[in-house]
């Protein structure tokens, strides 16, 4: 029909969704207040409970830092989906004239950006404050670059998984309890890979080639999860 308005391209729809979530966050500061506080609390607890003057940071550090990142990610995801639940926002989004995949990608992009930012703050803070004692890791530009890459690859994996699980549990009974449980369990393999790679990076002798190979494996899993999530999301959002 000539009077029909043309739909904007998919990337603009995705951008609009990301903008909506970013605006909500900028106004409420919910993620910063809840998730980052929890992440920093985890770091504080680790600092009190683990004596890095006795235990080596290069061996114990990766595990405790990634547990702090995981807790931060779980809290952040619970918060972003709680907002959708509270105001019946998802119903409105499902009624909007856009594809289900666009909706999923929009949520995913925002979650990936938010989790990467939070993860960088928690992991960076941990490295800054806890890196001491006999296992102190000396960071040069190359090591920092690889650490950033390890963070981005694994946090993106957590975001893909979390976005699908969040949308899946949104309208379930006890959904707000179910999401942290599912995210915690299903993140285990990604977390194991993240800890292995970070520990390898923190070791006194490491090679960029071997780390690159390990990272390729993690990246392959990210792609696998992303493909599965994009294919499965229409079944989740079907009403």
């Amino acid at each position, binding site marked *: 029909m000539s009077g029909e308005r043309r739909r904007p391209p998919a990337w603009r729809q995705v951008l609009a969704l990301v903008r909506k979530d970013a605006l909500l966050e900028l106004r409420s500061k919910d993620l910063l207040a809840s998730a980052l506080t929890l992440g920093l609390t985890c770091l504080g607890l680790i600092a009190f409970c683990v004596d890095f003057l006795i235990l080596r940071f290069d061996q114990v550090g990766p595990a405790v830092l990634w547990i702090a990142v995981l807790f931060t990610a779980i809290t952040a995801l619970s918060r972003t989906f709680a907002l959708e639940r509270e105001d019946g926002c998802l119903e409105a989004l499902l009624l909007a004239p856009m594809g289900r995949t666009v909706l999923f990608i929009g949520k995913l992009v925002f979650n990936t950006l938010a989790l990467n930012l939070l993860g960088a703050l928690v992991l960076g803070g941990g490295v800054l404050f806890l890196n001491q004692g006999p296992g102190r890791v000396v960071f040069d530009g190359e090591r920092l670059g690889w650490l950033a890459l390890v963070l981005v690859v694994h946090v993106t994996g957590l975001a893909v*998984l979390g976005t*699908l*699980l969040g949308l*899946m*549990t949104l309208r*379930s*009974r*006890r*959904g707000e309890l*179910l999401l942290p*449980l*599912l995210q915690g*369990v*299903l993140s*285990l*393999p*990604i977390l*194991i*890979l993240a800890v*292995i790679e970070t520990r390898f990076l923190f070791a006194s002798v490491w090679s960029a080639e071997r780390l690159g190979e*390990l990272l390729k*494996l993690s990246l392959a*899993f990210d792609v*696998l*999860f992303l493909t*599965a999530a994009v294919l*499965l999301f229409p*079944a*989740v959002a*079907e009403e």
Partner: protein
Amino acid sequence: MSQGKSPMKDLLAAVPFVVGIVASAWGTQLAFHVAPIERTLKFSQKIFYWHAPIGMAAIIVTLIGAGAAVTYLINRRLGADRVAEACLEVAMLATAVSLITGCIWAKPAWGDYFPLGEPRVTGMFVLLLILACYFAVRSSVEEPLRRARISGVMAIIGAINGLVAYFAIHIWNTTHPTVFTAREARLEETMLRAFLWCLVGTVCLTVVLIRQRLRYARLRDDLESCEQLLMEREA
């Protein structure tokens, strides 16, 4: 009209149960009285005749369950969802039993009941947690069609996750004994015979359990639809 089954069908249904019991009993007898005592692990190795078949059953039944979930999402028939539910419940039981028998064996072999960081132990533990999550998701949705859809998605994500866990933990070096490789079985002939009987027994008993679980699911769904009809009529 009567819905009773024919005696022939009943007899056929009992076959896996009888074969399972007989094969298991015969396999156990062979394991304890015919197969020799293993040189390094001594008597504790006897648990292998049950531990390995149950572990294999857990993984195979999980894969069948995930396959049924995919089938449901493609053809949307509730029967496939019931198969997925039955398989994954039996898989959860088998995973738990394989972990328990593994722990019993690990104490004399490795010195600890739960060797932390051992890849296959960690893998089975992760699988058990994923299967528990599947049932947590199932119980959180009441509407049958939505429950089937969401739990189908969960089963697929869980299966992919199990795959990731398998690769992630195999980056570490394993100390778990490898008895079967793609080319050979590193077992003495009498040991292999005992193992195969136990394997047949486990497979048959697993089939029996899945069938029973399926029957229960079918009856439960029938009851639910009857209740629904009654409520509609009252309204």
